[in-house]
Each structure stands twice: as C-alpha cells, then as structure tokens.
C-alpha cells in the first residue's frame, strides 16, 4: 500500500497496517495495538508533535526562526558549480545556495522560481521568462535578466564545455535580454522539456561576477541568490551554509545555518540521527528502519518515490538480442522476492521506465513480463539453442541493494531453466563498464525526471552516452523527437504510449522493483516534504520548538 505524503494515518498506525498487510500480524493483535496507540495518542497528543506529525506533509508545529541543522549528503560533493555538477550529493547543497529559473512540485508540475511567469510564442520556439525583480546574489551583484543570459550563454559556449549543456543544447540556440526583468530563450525547434531542464541543473543561476573572480576555483566558492550563502567547505568533510539575510523571499529561510556532512556509513548515519547529531536523513535502507521506528524523537517519512531498480542486457548482440530470451528473463524474474530481500517489502513491483508522471502507464499496468514460471519456461523453450547456453550475470557485490537483487532473482531464473553464473564487480565502476560494453547482463537503477523525455531519451535514443543497452530504433528516435515538440501533454501522451509499447518489452531493461522513498527527521523539524526526485529540500525546513 503506497503511502502518499498526505496520509491520514500516524506513523504507528502505518507500521501496523504494513505489518498486517504483509501477514505478519493477526487482525486481533492489530486491533489491540491500534486501540492502545489511539489511547496513547490522545494522552500524548497534548503539547507534543511527535507521532501525528510524521506522515503528513509538513507538520502542525509553528515555524521558529533560527537554529542549525545537520544533514548528511547521499554522496560526495565534487563541485558546487551547477554547470559541472554530476554527483547526486551536490544537488541538495545547490538547492540551498542557488535559485532555479523554475521549480516543480511533488507531482512534477512546473512552478515559479526566479521566473514568476513565462510564456511561449513563435510556435513554441521562444520562451519569455518574467523574472522576480530586485533579486541580489550573495555578493551583492544583481540577479537580473543579464545575469540569466550570462548563465545560459555559459552553457551554450562550447569552450566552457559544461556537461550540463546537453540538458538544453540543442535545441537552445540563443538568449536575448528584453529588459532587466525579462529574458527570452530562442530554440531551434519547439521543445516541451525545456522548462523541466530549467528546473534541473540547467536552470541554476550563478553569479557572473563570482565566476569571473574565482575562475577555475569557482566550484569551491559558489555564489548564488538562494536562501543560504556558502560559508565554508572542509574538502571531503563538512559544507557549512548560513542564512542569506537579503533573500528575495521575505521571512525565509527560517534556519540560521545548515551543515551538510559526509557520513560515509549508513548505520553510523542512523546512529547520528538518533543521537541528534543529524536532524535529517534521507535514503535510509529499509533494514535500518527498525531502530528509528521505535525512537519517539524521530519521525519516519515514506512516499511512493520514483526510483526503480532493473536488470539490463545488451540487446544489440547475442544472446539477448533474442526476443524469447528477453521474455524468459522477464517472466522468470521473481520481483516480489527482490522486494522482500532488498527492501524489506517496502515498495512495489516496477513495470516501466517512468513509473511516475503524466506519461507513465497506469498503476494497474502489470509490466511486459509479469512473473510467471510457466511462461518463462515456454519462452526459454522457444529461444532454442540461445536459451541453453551459460549466461553470466554481473552483480555489484559491494553494494547491498544490487547484491540482494541478484541473490533474490537467481533462484527464479534457475527454476525457469536458465543456466546462470553470477560474477561480482565493483559498484563504483559498474556503470562505466556498462558504457564500455564490458558486460552483457547486469543491473541498474534510475531516478525520475520532471519530463518523460528526460529519461526516455537518455536510455533509448540511438547512441546516447547513457544508452547502455545499445537499443536502437529509428522509429523510436523519431517519435521521441516528435513528442518532445508537443507542448500539450494530452496530445503528446499517445506518442509516449507508442514509444513505451516498443521500449518497455525490447529496450533491454527488465524492471524489477521500486522501493518506497524513506527519510527521517527529528520530531521537532518541520516543513519536511519528500519529492519523488529524492532530493532533500533543506531550505524549507524549520524547528518547531
């Protein structure tokens, strides 16, 4: 039962419901507990926000101004220059330091950022952004249309060679300033994903003066217009941010200071949260939740998320260019076993590369190859000689989720008749090795983007550097380009349905599981809302007492 952020149930009741659903609790015991906790809640409810607050969006507590909050980043920060930012752990920090041109809500609907309003013209080839007036960077310089143009020109400049350029270039071809609060983006063709890209790393606005001042070192001296200014950075250690008093959203942010730490071990991070040395923690492995669930000073927050795990294979060469083998692999995958082993049963079976958003198949879609031992065996029989050879699955032995996935899937595949051997590899270099084509059959995971074009183009467009299954279909390429030009999502939807009907079964990915996105905060932390992109919005947080 996926939980939405606006669940009616308290954390206690939710845990009980989950246990009931998984058959681990008899009905009678559930009712006994529920009655007990309800009574306890009535008594405890006076004056504390601990239990009820946990699973509702935000909390009932009143925001207090002030305080220092510590959070540990999901991976190591290399640079805080958004044009060059490739690590996931950099983004929560950048969300505090910078404003984005536009933002999105928890349903990926585009919402205002530095741009208050916007409009498309010229058949969708010109985007006019009307910027918030009187915005200043942390260094006092003006964050106006000229600054925005400077930022986008920087992405357009091939000498700068920013990796993030590929988010909007092509089709962005030029940027013009109309007046100090109006800037126009000119595209070579209409392109709906542009706004989603401007809500991502292409839309973070940095101070031109600071880049000119620091040159190549800018990434370790970031200057933005966001709610927090950069204070200090111990390389490999803590990044400290302090409130920017001149922030354009009056009254915000609430916190005085945010400390982003680099705690490398998850069990240490969970212990640190319990000891109140961290106040927020995201990406909590399901196996460590038990410790937190019993701690009354910690609120656990779960949402449906969009982060899916899959196996993948090279569809361009034997053996997996054989459609029957693809089917056998898919039907033989015991997805529920993976959910149990890797994610303690928290989550759902993954069925497609989108899973969330307006272009995703309905929740009832069962996937191209729903687990079925009999269908797996008959598909394997149809595959003939190809199905009888020894197949090597490469698993990352040093990354728990990946090794659990391989371990849970192996028995099902063996029962289906696949002759498998599993070899280990290092997680950190696995993706790069997949790009080099080193392994035929392995595993992966991806998080959702705000626009369906985002991930579909990365995974399935011919020759994309992120297309590691070597899928290539000119018809799909053409459909992707066509669909990206359509602004009306209702009109674009049939094209995406057509694309998905081809890429889901034959794209080279066997979608396995999508775990719940689990985070936790100290109970006196308010304003915490999880987004399905799994990025913590630290700047919105406050203490309630």
């Amino acid at each position, binding site marked *: 039962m996926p939980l939405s952020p606006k669940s009616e149930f308290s954390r206690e009741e939710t845990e009980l419901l989950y246990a009931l659903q998984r058959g681990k609790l008899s009905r009678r015991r559930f009712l006994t507990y529920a009655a007990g906790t309800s009574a306890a809640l009535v008594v405890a409810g006076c004056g504390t926000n601990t239990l009820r607050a946990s699973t509702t969006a935000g909390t009932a507590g009143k925001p207090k101004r002030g305080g220092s909050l510590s959070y540990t980043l999901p991976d*190591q920060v*290399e*640079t805080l*220059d958004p044009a060059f930012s*490739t*690590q*996931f752990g950099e983004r929560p920090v950048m969300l505090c330091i910078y404003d984005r041109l536009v933002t999105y809500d928890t349903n990926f609907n585009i919402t205002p950022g530095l741009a208050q309003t916007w409009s498309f013209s010229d058949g969708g080839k010109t985007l006019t952004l009307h910027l918030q007036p009187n915005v200043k960077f942390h260094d006092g310089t003006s964050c106006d249309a000229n600054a925005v143009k400077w930022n986008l020109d920087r992405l357009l400049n*091939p000498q700068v*060679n920013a*990796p*993030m*350029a*590929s988010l909007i270039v092509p089709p962005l071809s030029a940027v013009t300033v109309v007046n100090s609060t109006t800037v126009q983006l000119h595209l070579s063709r209409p392109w709906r994903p542009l706004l989603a890209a401007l809500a991502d790393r292409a839309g973070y606005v940095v101070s031109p003066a600071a880049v000119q001042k*620091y040159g*190549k*070192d*800018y*990434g*370790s001296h970031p200057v933005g217009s966001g709610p927090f200014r950069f204070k200090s950075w*111990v*390389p*490999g*250690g*803590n990044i400290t941010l302090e409130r920017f008093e001149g922030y354009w959203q009056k009254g915000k942010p609430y916190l005085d200071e945010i400390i982003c*730490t*680099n*705690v*490398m*071990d998850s*069990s*240490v*991070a969970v*212990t*640190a949260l*319990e*000891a109140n*040395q961290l106040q927020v923690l995201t990406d909590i492995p399901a196996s460590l939740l038990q410790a937190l669930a019993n701690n009354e000073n910690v609120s656990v927050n779960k949402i449906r998320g969009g982060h899916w795990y899959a196996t993948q294979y090279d569809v361009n060469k034997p053996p997996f260019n054989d459609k029957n083998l693809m089917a056998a692999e898919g039907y033989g995958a015991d997805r529920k076993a993976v959910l149990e082993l890797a994610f303690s049963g928290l989550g759902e079976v993954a069925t497609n590369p989108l899973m969330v958003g307006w272009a995703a198949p309905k929740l009832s879609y069962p996937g191209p190859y729903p687990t079925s031992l009999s269908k797996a065996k008959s598909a394997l029989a149809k595959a003939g000689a190809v199905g009888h050879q020894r197949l090597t699955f490469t698993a990352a032995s040093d990354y728990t989720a990946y090794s659990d996935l391989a371990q849970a899937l192996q028995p099902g595949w063996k029962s289906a008749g696949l002759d498998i051997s599993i070899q280990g590899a290092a997680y*950190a*270099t696995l*993706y*790069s090795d997949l*790009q*080099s084509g080193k392994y035929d059959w392995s595993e992966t995971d*991806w*998080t959702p983007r705000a626009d369906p074009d985002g991930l579909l*183009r*990365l995974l399935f467009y011919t020759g*994309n*550097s*992120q297309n590691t299954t070597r899928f290539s279909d000119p018809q799909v390429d053409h459909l992707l380009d066509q669909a990206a030009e359509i602004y009306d999502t209702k009109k674009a939807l049939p094209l995406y349905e057509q694309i998905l009907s081809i890429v889901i079964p034959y794209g080279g990915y066997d979608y396995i599981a999508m775990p719940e996105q689990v985070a936790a905060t100290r109970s006196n932390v308010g304003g915490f809302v999880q987004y399905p992109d799994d990025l913590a919005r630290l700047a919105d947080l406050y203490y309630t007492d």
Partner: protein
Amino acid sequence: MLAYLVRRVGHAIIVLFGVTLVTFLLTRVVGNPVQLMFGQGTAVTPQQVARTRASLGLNKPLVLQYLTWAGHALTGNLGRSFTEPRTVASDIASAAPVTIELTILAIVLAVLIGVSVGTLAAVRKGSAVDTASAGASSLALAVPNFWLGLILIYVIGLKLGWLPVSGFTPITASLGDNLRDMVLPVLTLSAFYAGSYTRYVRSLVLAGLSQDYVRAAEAKGISRARVLRHHVLRNALIPLLTVIGLDVAGLMGGAVVTEVIFSLPGVGSLLENAILTGDVPTVEGTILVIAVGVVVLNMVLDLLYGYLHPQARVIYD
C-alpha cells in the same frame, strides 16, 4: 655515512619513479577517467568527451604526459584535480594532517599500551596479569576494526553520549574539538596494534631478561627495575622500532576503513574517492606523497636503527 646516504637516496628515486610510472599507466591507459568523471545520469556528446580529453592533456603521448607531470611534481605542482575545482596539492594538504594525526596518535597509544602491558606481563610471567593480557591482546588482534568502530560509536556515542557519533573538526578550527573527535577513531585504529605490540614486547622482554648480562647486573646488586629500564627495554625496543616503522608506513596509505567509519576526510578517503571518480591527478599526487612518506620514513628508521645499535653501523659504513 655519506656514501650510504647517497646510495639510499638513489634507491629512493628509483622506487618513486617505478611507483609513479605504474600509477600513471594504470590510471591513464587501463582506466577510463573521462567516462568515470561524467558518471551515470549525465548525457554527453562525443564532441564533449573529446574536448574534455584534450583539455586535460589526455590526448598527448603518454611519455610526454608523464614527463610534464613529473617535471611539475618536482617543483611541488601536482596539478589540478580533474573533478574538483581545486589543486591536488591543496586537497592533499588538507587530508594529510588528518591521516598523520590519526596514525601517529594510534601508534603512540598502541606503543604506550604495548610497552607497559607487555613488560608487566613478561615480568609477572604466568600470573593472572599475564593471562589476562594474553586474552585481551588476542581479542584485540581478532576483532575486525570496522566492527569495533561501530560498537564504540553505538555504545560511547549513542548510548552513553560521552562523545559525538561522527564528525570531524580540523585542528586549525579547534584543538579541543579535534582531539575529542579523534578519541574513538584512535581507539579503533590502535586496538589491533596495541594487541600486537603487547605480545611482541612481552616476548622481547622475556628474551632480554634471560640474557647473561642481566644476571650479571643483578648479581652486582643493580635493582630489577633499573636493569629493566636501562638495559632490557632499550634492547627490546630496537626491533620494536622496526615493526613500528613498517606499520606506520603501511598506515600512511590511509587507514581507509577507520576513515570511512568515522567519516574522517583523510588520505584514505581522498584516494578512494579519487579512484572512483576518475580524478587521475589526485590519484597520482596522493600515491606520490604516500610513496615519498614511506621512503623517507624507512630511511629515517634505518638511520635511527644505526644510531641505537652501534654494531649495525659497521654494516652500513
């Protein structure tokens, strides 16, 4: 003596040349740094990749790349990181003190424990103290250091609340906080060595105590304690010094596991991260610094050994 020094320096240069050359080959020829740099989730065109390779000098012939790098390294310029907006030298300069402090404190603690408990156990051979120390040192040797670290964090950090669970304060920010943050990591790292040195010192002291000169000295009327302090221990510490030197040299590679458990931004985590993100200059620079450290340390130890053990000097001269 001078000839000896010159020979040693010559050896050192050969070692450093070999180590850096192998590192160069492994990172720039066998590895694919540009691909690792971009990672998963960032689409890049072949033109972008080519431009990046060119700007990082990866297109040039390998010999030229090596000579350029070596030339700069001799002047202390280790280049810029491929992935971070910093110079390699500044990264190492902030990471090295952390690892050096951790390593030295751990070894000092281990030596203090080892010498005191080991000597006591030797002097009171067969007693309860001796048995207890044998048990404790076995335990210290057997317990995996990451497990010990996690237990210490849980018990002392969380349950007792005496010390912070994680975090690191640079020594420049606050000496007090820095030492407080180092207590658990130092305890964790030193445990194994404390156990090892206890057993080693015990056997060295026992061997020393059975020497003829000890009996002669006691016959002359010199007290046990004085004999221990002025003769036996001095002789026992010389081989111990060699062992310590080897251990410190090994640890200078970064007590990686301890650094990861306690999230210390030291050389171990710097090197690990650099390898995994394709940050070639940082890998090369860090390995060079570690190699220099190991070589220098070994030279110093050899000289110290010669000083302490007059007979050894004959071999070197």
